[in-house]
C-alpha cells in the first residue's frame, strides 16, 4: 500500500498529512512535487491544505490546471481514493471530482477554530471507522469554505447519501447557529459520484493524535487504509 501527498507552490499542510500517514498510521507515503507528476500507481492520494498559488483567481483554480491534477483525475476514474482537505477540497471541486464549489464565507473573514461535525455517511471508504451519526471535533481554517452547488446537485448529494460531514453543535444538532461560514445545508464534506473522492474543509490531519487535543480525524485515514486492505 502506498499513498501520495501532493505539494503545490503554496501548499502548507502537506507535511502534516505526510506525518500522519507515515508516522501515525505507518503507511508508505511519497510527497509529490506537482511538477514531478504521478510516476507510479498509488492506492490513495491526499491533496493537502494551504494557499496554492496565493488563491489567485479563485481558491484552487490554478492548481487544478496543473498536469499532476490530470493524473489525479485519471486515478479517481479508475476508482482510486482521493482525499482533498481544505485547499485540497477547493481543488477537488474546481477539478470536477466533486460537484459544486467552496467559495468565500458568508461573513468574509478567515475562520480558524475547532468545530463539531456530524458524520452523515458511514459506508464510504473515508468514513467507515465512524459510527452512524457520530459527532466529532476537527479544526477549520479557511476563508473560502462555503459550499455552493446547483439545487439539482444538492438534491443528488442528499439522495445518494454523499454528504460525509455537516457542521453541528456539540449535541449533534445541525443548526444555523453551528454553521460557521454560511455553507449550504451545513455541508462541509462531500463525496464524489463514485464515493472514492472526499472533499472536506475541516482538517483531519491536524486532529489525528491525542497529544494535539483530538484524534477524531485519524479515523478518516484508518477508514481509507481498511478500505484499501479489503480490496
Amino acid at each position, binding site marked *: 500500500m502506498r499513498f501520495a501527498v501532493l505539494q503545490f507552490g503554496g501548499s502548507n499542510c502537506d507535511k502534516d498529512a505526510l506525518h500522519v500517514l507515515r508516522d501515525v498510521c505507518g503507511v508508505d507515503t511519497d510527497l509529490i512535487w506537482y511538477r514531478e507528476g504521478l510516476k507510479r500507481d498509488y492506492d490513495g492520494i491526499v491533496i493537502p491544505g494551504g494557499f496554492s498559488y496565493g488563491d489567485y*483567481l*479563485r481558491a484552487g483554480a490554478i492548481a487544478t490546471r496543473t498536469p499532476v491534477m490530470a493524473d489525479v483525475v485519471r486515478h479517481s476514474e479508475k476508482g482510486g481514493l482521493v482525499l482533498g482537505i481544505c485547499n485540497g477540497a477547493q481543488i477537488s471541486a474546481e477539478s470536477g471530482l466533486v460537484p459544486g*464549489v467552496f*467559495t468565500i*464565507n*458568508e*461573513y*468574509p473573514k478567515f475562520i480558524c477554530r475547532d468545530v463539531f461535525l456530524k458524520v452523515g455517511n458511514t459506508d464510504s471508504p473515508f468514513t467507515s471507522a465512524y459510527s452512524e451519526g457520530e459527532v466529532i471535533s476537527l479544526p477549520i481554517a479557511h476563508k473560502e469554505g462555503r459550499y455552493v452547488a446547483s439545487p439539482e446537485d444538492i438534491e443528488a448529494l442528499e439522495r445518494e447519501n454523499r454528504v460525509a460531514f455537516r457542521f453541528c453543535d456539540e449535541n449533534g444538532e445541525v443548526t444555523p447557529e453551528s454553521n460557521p461560514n454560511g455553507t449550504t445545508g451545513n455541508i462541509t464534506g462531500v463525496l464524489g459520484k463514485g464515493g472514492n473522492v472526499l472533499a472536506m474543509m475541516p482538517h483531519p490531519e491536524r486532529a489525528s493524535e491525542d497529544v494535539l487535543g483530538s484524534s477524531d480525524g485519524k479515523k478518516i485515514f484508518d477508514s481509507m487504509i481498511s478500505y484499501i486492505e479489503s480490496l
Partner: protein
Amino acid sequence: MIFDVKITISLKSGMLDPEACAIQHALSNLGFETEYLNNSKLFSVGISADDSESAKAKAEEMCDRLLANPVIHSYSVEVTE
C-alpha cells in the same frame, strides 16, 4: 492582428456576494447610500487572431476553462481592435 479583449467575470444573479456587501457597508459609513453594488473581475487580454469573432471565441474558451467557474459565475466578452 492583436485584439484588445475585455473579459468581465461576475457572480450569477442571486449568488451571495459577501465582499460586495462589506464594500457597500463601508460606503454607507462614509455617507454614500447605494441601492445595489456588484463586484466583478475585469481582465484586459491581448489576443492574436485573424478576426474579432475568433478572438471572442478564444476569450470565451478561456472563461469556460479557467477564468470563470460555471457553478457561480457568468461572463461577458467585449472585443476591440
